[in-house]
């Protein structure tokens, strides 16, 4: 691996007796789109603000491009930030906002103008230079904030929930744009978000945080498919939790006797340690399929529809199966008529016996 762009080592932050960060260590590679994901109060924003220099860590080290930034003021760090509310200077025009940080570099007026218009073009605000912040929509403000930070060509761009103030449609558009922008400029991005879909869609890697600790760092696919704990699994979407008796263990998987589901092969996530004879298991709702035609496969169970929620392209069903305490969550696309299933209907659910994941408690 190349040297990390950001290396955080055993970072701690306490506010009085409250500990916001517990020995957080993580590396971010150059050019990586890295997300800090977690519920509010998990410490992700504190971590981001520590990288930016707005919080002083109680212990530990932060290195950016090999150089420790502990004790350096925000203006001495090679990072720039996009704030949650964008923090556009209301007394300046869009172009003046973008030029704000350039003033310090003492560029020639023509060079400064060129960099400003280049940055505005980059975020597709080329013709908005003369406008005031009050005349901009939320999406445009965000672009100004991006241009204002990127024009300084930082080593790291920090984004504090940049999409949370936008409505759903705009948010999805901006996600696509943000990703494209990051690829175009090649700068390391660190994004803070509480929206798992945003993190999954945008990131190269995600760090999931709970209560001031990093629970797991992995690629979106890895973290979704092989969460290391119940908490991570539940935070990244629906999950059916089961338990089973361990029959056999190999380096990468467990063979588990899982009640009605029979003997299944559960993936062992990295760092999994067996704690006894039994283990928690999870299977994602979309991994359970309704069988519309009878099929001769041993990997099916019978259940009754308890409840369903219609989501347009999909229907989320709750299906009670014999021998299970909790109804199973099932997500079906509406191509085959899942939206027409009445409550009380009896259905056959098929599953891939390899789609299970073992979970540490």
């Amino acid at each position: 691996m190349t040297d990390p762009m950001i290396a955080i080592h055993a970072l701690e932050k306490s506010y009085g007796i409250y500990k916001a960060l517990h020995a957080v260590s993580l590396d971010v590679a150059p050019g990586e789109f890295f997300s800090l994901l977690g519920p509010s109060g998990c410490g992700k924003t504190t971590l981001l603000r520590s990288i930016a220099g707005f919080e002083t860590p109680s212990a530990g080290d932060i290195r950016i491009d090999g150089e420790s930034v502990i004790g350096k003021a925000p203006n001495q760090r090679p990072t720039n930030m996009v704030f949650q509310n964008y923090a556009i200077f209301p007394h300046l025009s869009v172009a003046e906002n973008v030029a704000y940080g350039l003033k310090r570099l003492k560029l020639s007026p023509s060079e400064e103008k060129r960099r400003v218009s280049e940055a505005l073009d980059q975020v597709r605000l080329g013709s908005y230079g003369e406008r005031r912040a009050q005349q901009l929509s939320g999406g445009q403000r965000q672009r100004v904030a991006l241009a204002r930070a990127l024009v300084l060509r930082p080593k790291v761009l920090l984004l504090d929930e940049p999409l949370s103030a936008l409505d759903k449609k705009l948010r999805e558009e901006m996600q696509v744009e943000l990703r494209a922008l990051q690829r175009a400029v090649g700068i390391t991005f660190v994004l803070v978000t509480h929206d798992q879909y945003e993190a999954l869609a945008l990131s190269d890697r995600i760090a999931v945080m709970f209560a001031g600790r990093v629970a797991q760092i992995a690629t979106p696919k890895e973290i979704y498919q092989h969460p290391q704990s119940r908490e991570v699994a539940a935070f990244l979407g629906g999950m059916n939790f089961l338990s089973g008796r361990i029959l056999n263990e190999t380096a990468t998987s467990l063979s588990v006797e899982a009640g009605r589901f029979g003997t299944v092969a559960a993936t062992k996530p990295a760092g999994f340690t067996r704690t006894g004879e039994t283990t928690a298991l999870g299977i994602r709702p979309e991994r359970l399929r309704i069988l519309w035609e009878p099929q001769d496969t041993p990997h099916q169970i019978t259940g009754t529809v308890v409840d369903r929620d219609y989501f347009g392209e999909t229907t989320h069903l709750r299906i009670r199966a014999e021998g299970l305490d909790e109804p199973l969550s099932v997500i079906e696309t509406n191509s085959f008529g899942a939206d027409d299933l009445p409550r009380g209907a009896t259905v056959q659910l098929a599953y891939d016996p390899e789609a299970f994941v073992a979970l540490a408690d």
Partner: protein
Amino acid sequence: MKGTPFLFKGGWLTLYIVLILSFLYLPIALIPLFSFNNAAAVAFPLSGFTLRWYDALWGNKEMLRAALNSLLVGIIVACLSTLLGILAARALTRYRFPGKRAATAFLSAPLFLPEIIVAVSLLTIILSVGLTPSLVAVALGQTIFCLPYSMSVLVAGFEGMDRSLEEASRDLGETAAGTFRRVTLPLVAPAIVSSLIVSFTVSLDEFILAFFLAGTEPTLPVYIWGQLRFAAKLPSVLALGSLMLLASILLITLAESVRRRAERRLEQQVLL
């Protein structure tokens, strides 16, 4: 809840309000009225329109000197109280520190202090350390009483300003001092202007401290007090009073409109 229809339904309430407002403002309205009255005696019936009392003011060297003194003191007080107000408002809105509530209370307390007691104690101190009463003493004394006004205007200004704007400036490479100059000052400028005007106005009208501490250099209110002994000078005093009234109204209107403009700007900012 709509207040207006209820107000007029009662009839009695309307009458009450008219009475209260008359009691408050009619006597004041009499001052400009008699200042244009062509008679040395301040009494009805009015005997005709004249500008001669105003005319007489221009030739009155003593009065002009007092006006100059007031202007000087007002400017010193406005600057001093606004400067201290900025420091206090910034500390109170940006930092958490032990004794913050007490500090707020003590800084606002002069609003409720009996002015005459403060005047007497200041005079005692000045005399006991061997200084003589002077306009500087007046300005310092008045600053104590103007600071709460300045502070309340400025605290509102600083509170309305989003803190992340200052952080954004630091993040974009600006130093703390540069941030104050390029972001904080322009954004609280309306509050600063407002504070300057309000404290100048308070100083302009202030009498007790000026009376005790001014020594041989009277300010306008002290000069007016002195003139009241001479019945013949009364119409002239009324003319002077009318001008001061006008100045006060204009200044306060200006301060208020500056403040409201700033408020609107900050509202838009919050709405995003």
